[in-house]
C-alpha cells in the first residue's frame, strides 16, 4: 500500500528491564504488516518484557487487537512477558468491549512492568 509507511511510525526505546515500542499514526489493515515487522524485530532481541504503547495512535481498529494478540502469543511461547499501554480513550474502550483487558498486562502512563 503506497504511503502506508508514513501513516504508521514505530518508536523503539530500550530500557534495562524492557523494550518499548510506541506506535504513532494509524494502525489498520494496511499498516499492520509494518507494525508486525517491528514487533518481530523486537522479539528477536528477546527482551525480558516487551511493551506495546498504543496510546499515541490516532486510529486503531481490530488490526491493533490482532497485533497485541499475536505478540501475546509470541511472548507466551517464548516464556517472556508482554505488556500494553492503552491509555483511557477509544483504544482502551475497544479492548474493554472485546473483553480482553483482564487477559493482558495493562500499564498506566509512567507505570513500569
Amino acid at each position, binding site marked *: 500500500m503506497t504511503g502506508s509507511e508514513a501513516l504508521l511510525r514505530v518508536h523503539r526505546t530500550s530500557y534495562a528491564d524492557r523494550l518499548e515500542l510506541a506506535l504513532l499514526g494509524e494502525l489498520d489493515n494496511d499498516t499492520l504488516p509494518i507494525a508486525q515487522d517491528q514487533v518481530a524485530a523486537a522479539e528477536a532481541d528477546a527482551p525480558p518484557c516487551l511493551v506495546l504503547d498504543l496510546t499515541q495512535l490516532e486510529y486503531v481498529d481490530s488490526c491493533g487487537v*490482532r497485533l497485541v494478540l499475536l505478540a501475546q502469543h509470541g511472548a507466551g511461547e517464548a516464556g517472556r512477558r508482554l505488556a500494553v499501554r492503552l491509555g483511557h480513550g477509544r483504544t482502551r474502550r475497544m479492548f474493554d468491549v472485546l473483553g*480482553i483487558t483482564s487477559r493482558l498486562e495493562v500499564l498506566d502512563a509512567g507505570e513500569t512492568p
Partner: protein
Amino acid sequence: MGEAPVRVPRPRRRAGAAVTGEALARSRAAGFQQLTEQLSRALTPADIGRLTATTAAAFIGADGCAAYARRDGEDVLEALHISGFVGDSARRFTRVSLHRGRPMSDAVLSGEPVWLEDAGQWHARYPEMAPFGVAEGHEATACLPLRVEDRDLGAVVFSFYRPRPFDHDEREFLGAVAALCAQALDRARLYTAELEARAAAERERDRMAFLAQASRLMEAPLSVEERLRQLADLAVPAIADWSAVHLVRGSHVEKVAVAHPDPAKLALAEELERRYPRTADQHDGAVDVARSGVPVVLPEVPDELLTAAAVDATHLELIRSIGMRSVIVVPLLVRGRSLGALTLVHAESGGRFGVEDLTFVGQLAATAAVALDNAALYEQQRLVARTLQSALLPEELPAVPGVSCAGRYRPPSPDLTEVYVGGDLYDVHEDPERGRWALTVADVCGKGPQAAALTALVRHTIAAEVRHGLGPAAVLRRLNAAMRRQQGDTRARFATVAHGALTVDPDGVTITLVNGGHPPGLVLRGDRVAWVEVPGTLVGVYPDIDLTETEVRLAPGDLLLLYTDGVTEARGEDGFFGPERLADLVASLAGASADEVVDGVLTAITDFQDGRLRDDVALLAVRAE
C-alpha cells in the same frame, strides 16, 4: 535555386586566341567559387545531383553528365540526375548494378577514376560497354568516384563529344570538381538523414501520445465493447483510414467495431456486408489473425487480391470503392492467448503499413487485449464474490410471528458491492423444536478469502449448534472451540459475535443475549434508547471465554438493534461516528419499522463519511409488533 549559369572556360586552345595559363587558372578559380556557392545552397542529394550534372558539367565543358548516389552497403547506384544524353540511355542507366569490368563500377569499387580519352580507348578497355559509351557521338569519358573520407557516396560520369586528353592538370581539375560535389553530397545526405530522423522522432512522439490516449480510453468506466468501439473511432483518421476490431467468441469470431471518419464510407461497408455476407469457407484476414494469433502486414493490396475475393462485377466494384491500399492486422494477445484482432487499413490517404509498424500497432492491440482480459477477470471475481457472499448472508430472513426483522450488509465502498467479500454477517434462524429463533451479528477481523472462510465457519457453526438445541452461551463456546480448531494456535483471526435466542409470547418478545466481545446493542423504547452492555470475550483466540447471558424484553413497538463496529468506527470530518451519535440517531427513528431503522443508520453513516465506508457494516434490527 536561381543560380547563375557558370561561364564555361573552354580548355581547348584556339588559333589566334592564346589563353595563358594564368587566365585559365583565374577563370577556373572563379568557376570553382560559383560552383561552391551554388552547391552550398543546395539541400538535398537530388539538388546536388542536378547541380553536378548541369553546372559542374558545364564548368568542365562536358557534353553529358550523370551523377549517381550509392545507398549504404548496397551494390546499386541510383541516378540523381542525368543530362546531355539523348535517346534511351538516360532511362537505361537510372539504376546501375555494380559490376566489375564496367568503367563506372570500376571507379566506385577501386576508388580511382577511370579515364577514357577517346572511342579507341573505350573499345580497347571496355569492349562490352563501348557501344553505350560512344553512342550518339560521345568520345571521351571520365568516371570519378564520389568519396568523402571512407564514405562511398556514388559516382559522377562526365562525357565529351570530342576526344579529350586527360593530362595531369585535367585530372586534377576534374578530381577537384568531383571532390566538391562529393562534399556537398555528403552534407546533403547528413541533412536528409537528420530530417528523416526528426520525422521519425515526431512520428514516434505522436504514436506515444496516441498510445497514452488509447490506454486512458481502455480504463474508461464503460463496457469493454464500448471501449473497443471508441478505440476503433480513435484510430481514424489518426493512424488509419479504416479500423476494425474482431473478438473471439467461443468457436466463432465476431466483428464488434468498424470505423471510418466518413459516414458515407461506413454505409458503403455495411452495404457490402449486407449484400455479400461472408460464407464460412471464405477466408477473412481478421478472422484468421484472431484465431492464429499471427499478425499480417500487406504493404500493398494488389488488385488481383480484390478480384479474387469478388464473387461478381458489382461485388468487385463495391470492394474497390472501399479503396483498401495497405493493411495491417494484429492479434489481441494476452498471456499467450489471442482474444481477437485489430485491423487498420490505409485507403484514400495513401499511407502505407510496413513490418516496421508491427511494434506500434502490436502495442495498441496489447492495450486493448489487457483491458479485455481485465474485464474477464473482473467478471470471474464478481462471480466468486457473489457465490461466497451468498454463503455468508441469508437470502432473506425467516418470518417470525409477532416480530419484524431487518438485516443489511454493505461492503466498504459502493463500487465494491459486486466483488467484495467481507467478514461481517447477520443472520436469523429458526429452532423449530424449541419454538425459538436465533439472532446473530458477527464480525470476523480482516478481509479477503481467509476472513470469508472463517465467516462461513461462524455462520454455519452457529446454525448447526442452534439446531442442536444449545443456548446462546453454549453456542458461542462451541463456536470458539471450532474456530480454534480451524486456525490452530496461531491467533491469526478472531471474531466478535452478538448472539441471542428469541421467543415470542402474547405480550412481546424475550431475547436471551450473549456477547463475545461485540459492541453493545441498543434498545429503542418509544423515543428512549438504552444500551445493552453484556460483557464477554472475543471468540476464536482463548481456550476459555467469559460469557454472560442477559435477558432483553421487548414490548410491542420496542426494537433491538445489533450492529458491527463499522457503524461506530465510521470516520468523517467530525471524527468518529461513535456510540453517542448512534444513540441519538436511533432515538430520532422512534416509531420507525425495522427496515427503516437499518436503512436510516446505513444512510447516516454513509453520509457521515462522504459516501465512502472504511469498513464493512452489518446491521440487524428486531422489532416486537
